[in-house]
């Protein structure tokens, strides 16, 4: 059947390491914050100018001057700091943020990512995504394995305009965890519970590397 969005976030949260600064994109990535493992200290960065982002406020405590990059009201944790967009992207471009998690429309087996523009449709803009993917040393994409028409989003080459090239390190979908080896393609690391290697092979259009027994995810 595959993972729910929240389970995708839960699996990604297992990648978190103590002491990491993390930037979470809009959508599934945002949910990762709900699953920080015990004993792991993380600070979340939002590119509009906060480090140490906390959970949503309780009703009545929303502050128009305190939002995240998705324009949602948020809170600040003890130890937080506020700064300008220039300083915020200095952190990102300067590779001070250890992990970026973001969604995608397409990912190629060389690590290219497309997530900002569909020709013929209204273009909303790339926001901070191009800066994030061009700079982050560790990028995990969170997305569904296939689009609404059932077509694979893991391709040999992206068909949509690119957001960044050769940058994605790992992809976590509703079906699988895959690492990108630019020389070989998507290396299948784990299957979602109850999902077969065959189904993943069928739904992966790009090069897929299956080595030995592929374990099921532990959630």
């Amino acid at each position: 059947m595959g993972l729910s969005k929240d389970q995708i976030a839960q699996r990604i949260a297992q990648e978190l390491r103590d002491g990491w600064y993390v930037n979470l994109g809009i959508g599934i990535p945002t949910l990762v914050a709900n699953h920080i493992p015990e004993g792991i200290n993380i600070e979340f960065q939002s590119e509009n100018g906060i480090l140490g982002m906390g959970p949503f406020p309780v009703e009545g405590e929303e502050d128009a001057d305190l939002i995240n990059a998705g324009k949602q009201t948020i809170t600040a944790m003890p130890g937080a700091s506020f700064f300008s967009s220039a300083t915020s992207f200095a952190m990102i471009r300067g590779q001070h943020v250890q992990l970026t998690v973001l969604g995608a429309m397409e990912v190629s087996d060389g690590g290219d990512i497309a997530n900002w523009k569909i020709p013929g449709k209204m273009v909303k803009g790339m926001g901070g995504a191009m800066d994030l993917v061009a700079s982050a040393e560790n990028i995990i994409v969170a997305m569904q394995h296939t689009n609404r028409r059932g077509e694979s989003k893991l391709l040999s080459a992206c068909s949509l305009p690119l957001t960044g090239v050769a940058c994605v390190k790992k992809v976590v979908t509703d079906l699988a965890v895959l690492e990108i080896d630019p020389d070989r393609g998507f290396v299948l690391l784990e299957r979602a519970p109850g999902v077969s290697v065959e189904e993943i092979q069928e739904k992966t259009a790009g090069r897929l590397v299956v080595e030995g027994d592929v374990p099921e995810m532990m959630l």
Partner: protein
Amino acid sequence: MSQTNYISKVVSDAHAALDGLEDNMTVMFGGFGLCGIPENSIAAIRDKGTTGITCISNNAGVDDFGLGLLLQTRQIKKMIASYVGENDEFERQMLSGELKVDLVPQGTLAERCRAAGAGIPAFFTPAGYGTEVAEGKEVRVFNGKPHILEHAFDAPFAFVKAWKGDKAGNLIFKGTARNFNPMMAMAGKITVAEVEELVEVGELDPNDIHVPGIFVQRIFQGTDYEKRIEQRTVRAKS
């Protein structure tokens, strides 16, 4: 000219702050979404009727607030932004060709503003390499990684909004309402700052100033701030 021993930047209100703003100028607006936007200045520009504006702003407001107000009245000719997604009128004008749009990666946008203010005409960044953003731009490899050359913006006017400011133009922001405001203040040839609270010189700790007054040419006490929230998200009380 009275002896104050500081350089006063105070103007009476938003309308006075627009002196010299003419049609077809490039104008920067601080803010991220509807957070930290110069509400009073935007309203005053709408009332003044300045047209042909090239806007440099991270976003374009919503239909009935923020820069959306200047889109409704067709005062904006071109939008330079990183994300313009929450505005139907924007979409209509863009698809009909009435509005030109230049999309810029958010970090590049921020740095091009800072560069303008800092006298750096151009710099290299990895953002956008290999994408359509890089088309026509110089590419150079540093430390094995390709970068593209990006240029500073040019902005005759910048409008920013701060939490507190003093008469010498020093600004302090609150929370994430800081965002693009400091760099745009640096970039504007004439920077207009509106503040929620205008205080006397000496009331702000010089260690706490986010934007030194040298970057601000005009300052005024704003009124009637709506400070609209775009995405009100809350959690259950635990």
